[in-house]
């Protein structure tokens, strides 16, 4: 059943590349890229999580059933986050958001 096998060198490479991507992510955030910043940061995070999932969590050597759970979880989160954020982004109502000044904390 085990086609691919996670070996010690692979683990070390995975760890080093995670540190590398952390460095890249940190560096990119200092460039002041404005609107692109969050997209780039999240993109790098997705790459890092794939490394953790496939190498550290051994997903590369497991059955498809386990991978399916990861795929579905990821899709559900993308759906939840994108739909929930699209609502306030595309509102044409007034006011676009609740006014906290109208009901300040006591």
């Amino acid at each position, binding site marked *: 059943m085990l086609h691919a096998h996670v070996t010690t060198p692979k683990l070390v490479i*995975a760890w080093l590349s995670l540190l590398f991507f952390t460095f890249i992510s940190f560096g990119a955030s200092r460039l002041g890229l404005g609107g692109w*910043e969050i997209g780039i940061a999240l993109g790098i995070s997705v790459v*890092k999580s794939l490394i953790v999932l496939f190498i550290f969590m051994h997903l590369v050597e497991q059955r498809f059933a386990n991978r399916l759970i990861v795929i579905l979880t990821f899709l559900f989160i993308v759906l939840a986050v994108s739909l929930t954020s699209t609502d306030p982004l595309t509102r044409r109502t007034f006011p676009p958001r609740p006014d906290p000044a109208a009901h300040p904390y006591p």
Partner: protein
Amino acid sequence: MHASRLAEQFETIEKQEHAARLAMWVFLGSETLLFGALFALYGAYRVMYEGEFVESLHHNDVLLGTTNTVILITSSFTVALAIHFVRASRSGLAALMLGVSTLFGAAFLVVKFTEYAAHVREGVLPAGMYSLAAGQQPPGGAIIGATLYWLMTGLHALHVVAGMILLAVVGIGCARKVYSAERYVAVENAGLYWHLVDLVWIFLWPLFYLTD
């Protein structure tokens, strides 16, 4: 030995262990969805209160956050090494690696609580407790940002504590030679939980520290 720990409903030990692993993945999936709901709130409030939301993130210390990222990534690496060693029947080394990983977890919490203490001193607290130095009311979006910060990192810190307990328990099991190459699915599942803690932080770090 196999026959004794094979539950009645399974034909083989492989099937039993696949079931245990699959159940862990399902559990981790549901845990991730719990955080997913909070990420959705983060997204919605961030676009709703653009500038104000980001104001609350200025209080976060990028250096401490990045230190914690490195700590958690390295702890994930040592946990992966522990699984590697227990599979090779080197239980002593596996126990050592799990012990080291538990200490990394403790280091993460020390850094996190140092930061929390600074927030408390500055008055950056959730909801209505959030106050600025001059006693002014912070803008509504900043209050929501600070509340989500405390909620998401606090929930993550609770997961770190749970993960440390799991790692310590299987670590002791490895030291006592309960786990070996023939029997290690419990160590593997505890490791999977720890990697999830790392995965969540991989997303919390850019959202709360880098993108302000």
